[in-house]
């Protein structure tokens, strides 16, 4: 019998090694795997490369992981946002390497990783300083940059419902990077608000099929706080 549901955070994050590439879902505060990030802080892995659209806000979650010096490098599209104080501090102090990637290139690099495509060409960023060091090629009269797939060792994501096979659904804009990161990592760990019986999820609504998911942990925190 397949059962990907684990009973504790320790089980959920067992085996994450120092130096791992960790993909963190979420866009702003929606669809962010907060409980798993807190558990990663407890778990202790360090020298991490984190891939996340944003670079954390306030002093908890990803910001706390950065503040504790556990992240060697962050790959993101939009590190500077309201409340990204910790990132600004560690970045200014030269304590973190930053790779800025256009958001669509970042998501496609992960999709490519999950789909077995080693690299692709895109017109995004041609002629800008983010093209530095990248192969440029003209195809059909337009210039493109070569972008390589972005693999994760671990993806930490948030879902709405899950079953024991790891099938997942999402709420509204909380889908964002979660299904893409689930495809791109060696091990995907999902925190889910609801655990349901196998067969209870409408197959038409499963956005991430269980083949991409390694572990599921039940975290019923309710609605995100309205700010």
């Amino acid at each position, binding site marked *: 019998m397949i059962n990907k549901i684990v009973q504790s955070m320790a089980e959920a994050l067992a085996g994450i090694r120092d130096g791992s590439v960790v993909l963190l879902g979420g*866009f*702003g*505060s*929606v*669809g962010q795997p907060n409980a798993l990030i807190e558990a990663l802080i407890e778990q202790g892995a360090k020298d991490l490369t984190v891939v996340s*659209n944003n*670079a954390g806000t306030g002093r908890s979650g990803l910001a706390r992981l950065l503040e504790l010096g556990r992240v060697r490098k962050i790959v993101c*599209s*939009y*590190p*500077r*946002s309201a409340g*990204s104080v910790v*990132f*600004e501090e560690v*970045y*200014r102090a030269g304590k973190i390497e*930053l790779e*800025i*990637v*256009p*958001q*669509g*290139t970042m*998501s*496609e690099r*992960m*999709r490519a990783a999950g789909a077995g495509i080693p690299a692709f060409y*895109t*017109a*995004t*960023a*041609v*002629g*800008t*300083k*983010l093209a530095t060091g990248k192969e440029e090629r003209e195809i059909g009269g337009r210039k493109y940059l070569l972008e390589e797939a972005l693999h994760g060792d671990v993806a930490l994501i948030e879902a709405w419902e899950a079953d024991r096979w790891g099938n997942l659904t*999402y*709420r*509204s*804009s*909380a*889908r*964002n*990077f*979660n*299904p*893409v990161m689930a495809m791109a990592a060696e091990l995907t760990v999902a925190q889910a608000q609801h655990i349901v019986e196998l067969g209870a999820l409408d197959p038409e609504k499963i*956005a991430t099929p269980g083949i991409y998911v390694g572990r599921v942990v039940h975290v019923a925190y309710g*609605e*995100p*706080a*309205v700010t």
Partner: protein
Amino acid sequence: MATATLPDACKPLTREQIAARLARDIPEGWYVNLGIGAPLKVADYLPAEREVIFHSENGILGMGPVPAPAAINPWLINAGKQYVTLRGGGSYMHAADSFALIRGGHLDLCVLGAFQVAENGDVANWSISDNDSAPAVGGAMDLAAGARQLWVLMEHQTKSGDSRLVRRCSYPLTALGVVKRVYTNLAVLDVTDDGFVVRDIVPGLTLEALQSVTDAPLRMAIM
């Protein structure tokens, strides 16, 4: 640098008025992405009977206006992390699909804010120097390169009075030669092969006065 002051009789538009002005010009049936900042206000000024379909890069197609506080769905935010609504017929998608429709040329229009637009259509909107403390590009480069048409909504001048419409951008570029139209608090301008052409100008402002606060040369449209 063009840093002249405006005549007293001139009434610059507010950001809301620029957004409303731009909303009026979007053709029925277009698929339109709204970038963060002032462009997001455009969704609030589209009359309910119009059918223009707004896309938000975080995975919303058919985005509606800002909800009343009691009607907030805490799971539904736009690219600027503000609460929004979904119109009937709207749908959600993940990040890779959202940017596939951007990169794939399916959007009729994208509206972005900017620091500078050059007369050759270059746009700079993500970083204000080569030594920016922490540059943040988001989806701007994908949108600028992928949408069929790019309009910019921005103030005509910086807070210190420098022109944002320039001969060549001095800030790091977002994309090259892509801007088709600019909506500012003073004017609406097309970007043509011959530079900026003024389509509309706020009451009380002459072309000469507009030129005096604009670095790039301007021509009046022949209507």
